[in-house]
């Protein structure tokens, strides 16, 4: 178990009697965890033991709800001056957004085509069935951007604007006795791919913070609330 996580768990167990807002907010996000060993589940145990089950009335369909960036609201929060402030626009970001708004259904020719393709993929229709669908003219006689399953696959590949980051290479290592091949990706490109995902935007952190509960006790939750991040990022290195 990670050191930060151990610390945070202990801090919460100690503060269970005064019940800070911190615990309540964590509880609302319980359904996001798939792991039994998750430390948040242990918090739930602490919580139910003290007979307070009140925040979970509508927990059922929370999986797809987007949350604001900061879910933890401790009573005290200390940020570092000017840490994590943006430098400027990411190169090419405006162009990318413009291209998406100008032609939202690209590479498909229309919304209908996009929805059809989307349905094919979601329903896991096999390739030969998709080909049969078009061969039998079920899609109508008008010209479409989707004549076959192979073009569907091509369109599907084009949809991700950052796909070139994930192109891997086959490498071969020869130790004199025999050669073995393996596959790998550029790790820096993988990081770029993750950072550029708009879907994660509300859940990305670049700024270290220090959090405290109502009694002034330090709280540790995510990695950026610990000292290491702060020591690394806010240092003399320019």
């Amino acid at each position, binding site marked *: 178990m990670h050191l930060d996580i151990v610390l945070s768990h202990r801090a919460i167990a100690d503060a269970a009697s005064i019940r800070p807002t911190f615990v309540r907010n964590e509880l609302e996000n319980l359904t996001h965890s798939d792991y039994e060993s998750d430390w948040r589940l242990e918090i739930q145990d602490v919580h139910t033991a003290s007979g307070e089950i009140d925040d979970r009335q509508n927990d059922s369909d929370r999986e797809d709800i987007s949350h604001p960036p900061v879910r933890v609201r401790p009573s005290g929060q200390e940020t570092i001056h000017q840490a994590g402030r943006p430098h400027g626009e990411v190169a090419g970001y405006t162009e990318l957004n413009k291209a998406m708004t100008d032609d939202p259904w690209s590479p498909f020719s229309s919304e209908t085509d996009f929805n059809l393709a989307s349905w094919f993929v979601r329903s896991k229709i096999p390739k030969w069935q998709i080909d049969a669908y078009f061969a039998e003219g079920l899609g109508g006689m008008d010209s479409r951007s989707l004549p076959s399953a192979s073009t569907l696959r091509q369109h599907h590949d084009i949809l991700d604007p950052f796909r070139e980051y994930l192109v891997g290479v086959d490498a071969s*290592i020869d130790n004199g006795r025999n050669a*073995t091949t393996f596959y790998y990706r550029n790790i*820096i490109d*993988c990081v770029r791919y993750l950072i550029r995902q708009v*879907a*994660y935007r509300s859940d990305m*952190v670049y700024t270290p913070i220090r959090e405290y509960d109502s009694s002034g006790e330090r709280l540790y939750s995510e990695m950026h609330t610990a000292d290491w991040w702060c020591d690394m990022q806010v240092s003399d290195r320019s």
Partner: protein
Amino acid sequence: MSTVLPLIGLSAQRHLTNFSRDKKAWPVYMTICNILSRTRSNHAKMPILLLALLPVQAKFTGESARANKAQRQTNADLLRAVFDLVLAPLQQEA
């Protein structure tokens, strides 16, 4: 000015099939700590990327890898060489 980007690496042996001898894959995955854990642990949001598929060294004839010191040494050297290659971009970037 700099920003911290902590990386997490994950690996596990993956059993592929019992047919044609036991085939296994050794994938290595990665993700970054800048993504909050509620998203990072959400499989549906696909925050964990495949970084590499480790090579499975051809076995020496006869003994098992556990019994054969030379085999173990070869495997360790190979693994080291692969990770040197895969993680090399990080050193250039730092």
